């Protein structure tokens, strides 16, 4: 902030709300305050993450040895479908934008709230309704879907399980995502504080802005696909179902035209957070700010043009395969640029590797592996071999979990003091991230070897030659469970017993560090006038900061 003053301690948004009643459940679930909505999302997203993890652990337990171990094939197939649906639609897509975007986007651009606060609340409600749809199938005759999270036709039409509920859930969750994106785009355009030009925005905002466009432009495709399925089923018009003269490959195109850009909805916001954390803990400006900002837009744009790389062996023409392979390699470049810029930002910094920074270091390593193995899959000769094998399972866990999931935790540790006004135990937090890193590699690295040796994915059972690697992976899953328990347990403990957090524990300079922890209802006593670049650490002079 221009004048570097800290608003005097007043009531925080926990004490003051937008509803008539100031406390109790209703003051939360009907609140239009972006910070409360962020915390509503945090609670729901974390809940589903834990559900997804438990399903993942059960699957890994099943795969500890060949033959049936704890469940039968039918249950296993439902597990991976539910695990995939929960992790994609209820955890990783809403994850960073809906939680940290909601909480920090208005603050970082110097606004009192998002442009459409009530729409924002509606989007959380849609999230909850979507989640309910996904879960009701558990209790209906037929049980939860067993199709995989991709719902490929014709299997999804033939199965006796409740696919339509899960599809309906994806449909509703899509709307929730569109509303969030729309809100963010408008907020960025209309609500920036005086002086905050586009190139004075923190890179987190650039990333959320680019994500918003992907959400608004790509997500309707999944809605259209759903409507087409409904038309097909009620009127018997053959669209996708070969039994009616439809084309199942068309379904795959429609599915990936949404779901590949969705991959960028998952990763772009994480990239924004990485830039914030690296700048703060290196206490210097981002190397190549514009390159990082533009690469977000480039990723958002090229991300639309690569969907068919999921379909190289479906009977795609050779020409189409070549074009999509080529574009896939091109989309790798902006991500690589970001990684180089982040590492270069550490050069001649003044680095304090606190917990959030350690999560980011883990991210750079794991996400690089995810990206580099993506090159193997983008290359035609190797993809024909590796498509639908464990190589792919390894690859997307490295990108989504090692990439976005890791940054979800980085963001949580970075902004925890601001959001809750409490500090956590840093020693335990560091043990947590260290163990997470080791567990991650043990759990997922063997999958690359399994895949190259020809182990297909979505397999309840496997040939004896794959036993050792599966066994190692399951050991990793147990380690992972311990690591996550330490990390989450430590934060829950801090919520209850943590020391009071100062306004600026890490010495950050973006606007959220200029206001009290936790922030007051309308964030700023007075809308700031922005004169500094986002990562100008000379502002620290005259600010109070540090954890002591």
């Amino acid at each position: 902030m221009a004048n570097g003053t800290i608003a005097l301690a007043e009531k925080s948004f926990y004490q003051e709300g937008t509803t008539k009643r100031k406390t109790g459940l209703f003051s939360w679930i009907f609140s239009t305050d972006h910070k409360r909505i962020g915390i509503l999302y945090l609670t729901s997203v974390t809940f589903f993450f834990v559900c997804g993890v438990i399903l993942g652990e059960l699957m890994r337990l099943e795969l500890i040895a060949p033959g049936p171990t704890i469940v039968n094939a039918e249950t296993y197939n439902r597990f991976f479908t539910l695990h995939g649906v929960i992790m994609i639609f209820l955890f990783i897509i809403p994850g960073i934008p809906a939680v940290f975007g909601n909480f920090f986007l208005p603050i970082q651009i110097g606004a009192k709230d998002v442009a459409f606060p009530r729409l924002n609340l509606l989007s959380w409600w849609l999230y909850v309704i979507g989640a309910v749809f996904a879960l009701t199938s558990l209790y209906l005759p037929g049980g939860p879907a067993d199709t995989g999270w991709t719902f490929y036709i014709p299997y999804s039409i033939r199965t006796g399980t409740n696919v339509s509920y899960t599809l309906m859930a994806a449909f509703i969750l899509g709307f929730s995502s569109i509303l969030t994106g729309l809100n963010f785009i408008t907020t960025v355009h209309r609500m920036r504080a005086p002086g905050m030009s586009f190139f004075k925005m923190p890179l987190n905002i650039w990333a959320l802005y680019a994500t918003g466009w992907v959400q608004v432009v790509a997500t309707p495709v999944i809605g259209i696909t759903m409507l087409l399925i409904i038309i097909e089923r009620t009127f018997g018009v053959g669209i996708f179902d070969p039994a009616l003269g439809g084309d199942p490959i068309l379904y795959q195109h429609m599915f990936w035209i949404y779901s590949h850009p969705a991959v960028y909805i998952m990763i772009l916001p994480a990239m924004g957070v990485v830039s914030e954390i690296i700048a703060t803990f290196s206490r210097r400006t981002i190397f190549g700010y514009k390159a990082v900002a533009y690469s977000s837009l480039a990723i958002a744009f090229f991300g639309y043009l690569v969907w068919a790389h999921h379909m190289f062996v479906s009977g795609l023409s050779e020409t189409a395969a070549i074009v999509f392979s080529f574009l896939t390699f091109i989309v790798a470049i902006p991500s690589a640029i970001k990684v180089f810029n982040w590492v270069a930002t550490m050069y001649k910094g003044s680095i304090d590797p606190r917990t959030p920074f350690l999560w980011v270091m883990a991210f750079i390593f794991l996400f690089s592996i995810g990206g580099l193995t993506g090159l193997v899959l983008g290359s035609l000769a190797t993809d024909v071999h590796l498509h639908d094998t464990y190589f792919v399972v390894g690859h997307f866990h490295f990108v989504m979990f090692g990439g976005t999931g890791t940054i979800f935790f980085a963001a949580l540790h970075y902004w925890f003091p601001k959001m809750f006004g409490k500090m956590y135990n840093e020693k335990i937090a560091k043990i947590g991230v260290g163990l997470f890193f080791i567990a991650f590699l043990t759990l997922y690295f063997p999958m690359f070897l399994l895949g190259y040796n020809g182990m297909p994915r979505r397999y309840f059972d496997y040939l004896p030659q794959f036993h050792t690697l599966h066994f190692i992976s399951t050991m990793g899953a147990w380690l992972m469970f311990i690591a996550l328990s330490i990390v989450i347990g430590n934060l829950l403990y801090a919520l209850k017993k943590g020391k009071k957090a100062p306004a600026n524990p890490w010495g950050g300079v973006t606007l959220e560090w200029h206001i009290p922890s936790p922030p007051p209802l309308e964030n700023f006593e007075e809308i700031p006038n922005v004169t500094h670049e986002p990562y100008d650490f000379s502002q620290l002079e005259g600010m109070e900061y540090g954890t002591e």
Partner: protein
Amino acid sequence: MLYNEVTSHANQVDNVMIYITVISVIFLLGITFTMLYFVFKYNRKKHKQASDIHGNALLEITWIVIPTILVLTMFYFGFMGYKGIKKIPDNAFKITGIAKMWQWNFEYPNGKKSDTLYVPSGKPVEIQLKSLDVNHSLYIPAYRVKQDVVMGKTNYIVINPEKTGSYDIACAEYCGLNHSMMYTKLVVMDSTDFNEWYASLDTQKETDTGEK
């Protein structure tokens, strides 16, 4: 796992894999060690005052151009290892492969049927692939090839068996309950053995499914 020497195509795929992996490992180690070096060298304990460096045009152009060239070479090798595989040679031996939940069946030009894929070595084989129910995918890991079998559509795959032996065939597209059991064998025989099998009058379904 690499270079099983069963077909020249498999070797070529392994070459592409090695090429991409070597470059990737160099990048990964480069990034990781640079990062660790900076974190130690510029640790706040020793390095109190950071210098704000906003960028360096030359450096940034270098790290756009070099990776772009490298990924384009990867694209090229990947493409070279793919380009011939859909071409059907004139002398190809034609077999029809039929997938259904959860088994494979192969029909030969003379009417012979088998659930194991017997082929002669040294001769290209074209398999027309059809499904009777949902999507499947014919996957021969040792050959590094697969092709989806799509309901309502005929796809094909060309293989060039060289070394005799028996190799796994898996289903790689999720197809329901027993998807993970949908294995059979590819048995490559030298041409005399194959001709003997092929000519044998037994047009009954072969029950030999290999090991599993």
